[in-house]
């Protein structure tokens, strides 16, 4: 029998382009903050899950093992999970297995990323995720894949670059109120449109920055959670699916793998009409169009209709369904695995009404966090309730 799982604490470090702390030290800081918030010490933790994305950023092989002492995993059942950019939301999904299965009553979930070690630029690591025989010889960069997908999405539904830019404006604006944010700023659609073209149609301000940082949550069984807090946030649905690495054989206008992951999580949480039942969404937004793509995959907007949400105010922080009230990857920053976990942390703080200046206007009870990654092929989803 599946047990109900709660989030009882959350923590994160600053997100910055380059941090003095090592990955271990970042993991420790985020985990310690989450433990303190839950009123626990490491002795109370029965299992530990660490999420971290490509080893190539750090140049450290067996990164999970390297990070173990900073993550509090020594001498405990410890797992490192990895599904590229989807890792941050996959980390609490794996933590959920630990607790829902009945194996453990408490699980510490930490997600960490140091992108800064790789020179001259972290982007270089992404070259090696492409097919080594048929794609790398063409001189690939990950930006190609985003620009190709963005163009296909715009073409299929007749969406303009200006409409997509509204997402960058909203998220960077929201991040101004986030104390850990790297790129919070009040900008305009015009600023985005006039920013330097990188891979047309992708421009500088359509993109999230490379970052260092960590974030963590504490999961507990219902029995333990109710003893420790009056305000548990229930992790009521989890979902994940992966598509093939044959990304050039895929429909680039719609993320079907996100739809499948979302439907799995919604079914588990008993959500029948996502658009009506979900109060806050934190979809993965490494690029502004990706927020729109993912809102459609999450069934929170019809196909090709997501751009209307920001323009009509629905997805603004004071709107009917705030999207990325944290400021998202575009504003808070994108330390890959930590960025997805930051979204789970934001849902936790929002659902407890603790988010201060970032607190959404509406009375929120249900939130969804989603991440995406690998070679355009994974969707990871969590549904949370207060």
């Amino acid at each position: 029998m599946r047990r109900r799982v709660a989030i009882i604490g959350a923590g994160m470090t600053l997100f910055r382009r380059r941090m003095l702390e090592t990955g271990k030290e970042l993991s420790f800081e985020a985990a310690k903050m989450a433990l303190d918030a839950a009123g626990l010490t490491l002795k109370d933790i029965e299992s530990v899950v660490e999420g971290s994305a490509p080893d190539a950023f750090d140049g450290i092989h067996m990164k999970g093992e390297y990070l173990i002492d900073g993550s509090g995993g020594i001498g405990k059942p410890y797992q490192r999970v990895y599904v590229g950019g989807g890792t941050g939301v996959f980390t609490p999904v794996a933590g959920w297995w630990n607790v829902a299965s009945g194996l453990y009553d408490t699980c510490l979930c930490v997600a960490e990323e140091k992108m800064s070690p790789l020179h001259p630029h972290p982007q270089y690591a992404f070259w090696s995720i492409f097919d080594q025989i048929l794609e790398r010889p063409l001189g690939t960069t990950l930006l190609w894949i985003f620009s190709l997908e963005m163009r296909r999405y715009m073409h299929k539904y007749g969406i303009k670059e200006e409409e997509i830019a509204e997402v960058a404006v909203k998220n960077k604006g929201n991040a101004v109120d986030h104390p850990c944010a790297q790129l919070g700023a009040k900008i305009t659609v015009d600023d985005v449109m006039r920013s330097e073209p990188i891979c047309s149609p992708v421009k500088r301000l359509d993109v999230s920055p490379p970052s260092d940082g960590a974030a963590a949550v504490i999961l507990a069984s219902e029995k333990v959670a109710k003893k420790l807090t009056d305000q548990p946030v229930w992790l009521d649905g989890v979902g994940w699916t992966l598509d093939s690495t044959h990304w050039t054989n895929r429909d680039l206008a719609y993320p079907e793998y996100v739809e499948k992951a979302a439907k799995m999580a919604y079914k588990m949480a008993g959500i029948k009409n996502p658009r009506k039942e979900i109060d806050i969404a934190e979809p993965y937004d490494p690029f502004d169009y990706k927020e729109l793509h993912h809102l459609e995959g999450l069934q929170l907007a019809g196909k090709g209709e997501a751009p209307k949400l920001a323009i009509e105010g629905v997805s603004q922080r004071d709107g009917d369904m705030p999207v990325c009230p944290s400021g998202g990857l575009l504003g808070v920053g994108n330390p890959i695995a930590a960025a997805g976990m930051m979204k789970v942390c934001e849902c936790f703080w929002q659902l407890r009404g603790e988010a201060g200046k970032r607190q959404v206007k509406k009375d929120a009870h249900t939130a969804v966090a989603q991440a995406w990654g690998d070679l355009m092929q994974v969707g990871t989803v969590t549904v949370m309730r207060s």
Partner: protein
Amino acid sequence: MRELSQKITSYPGHEITPEDLKASKYLEIIQKVEPKYSWAAGVAISRFLNELKEGRLIGRKCDQCERILVPPRMYCERCYRPTDSWVYVKDTGTVNTYSISHVGTDARRLKSPLLVAVVEIDEASPGMGILHTLSEVEPSRVTIGMKVQAVWKPAEERQGAITDIRYFKPFEGV
């Protein structure tokens, strides 16, 4: 006041700014890691590469879902069974999507922008695209749905690599 949570008032971490680096405020430990690999191309892709050397494109057919798969694979990932036969396909196709890249692999600016595209290959199943580059066309004239054809290296220069196709250019045939 900006806060993570009303219960949290300090935020851990120390940023290293570019100025800090310039002023040597922090130590840097630099190592170069240069692994070298020799990959087996596999059963399906070895044949595909050998056909490229001959100036031809080839796919594999799955008799169950009737898809012609490009790039070819020896198993159908959907039906999860071995594919059945080799099928030559044309070296022409349709632009599914394209981008004008101003940056290279390590994110440095390119001297001149590169046109990249997903090209859906004619006679393969719908949606079967490959990644390649476009040339002999002004970036502003490229459109989704445009017909293109492969421009091959001369036979003596081909070596069984995806770059045996130099690029795709607008289709001039009928």
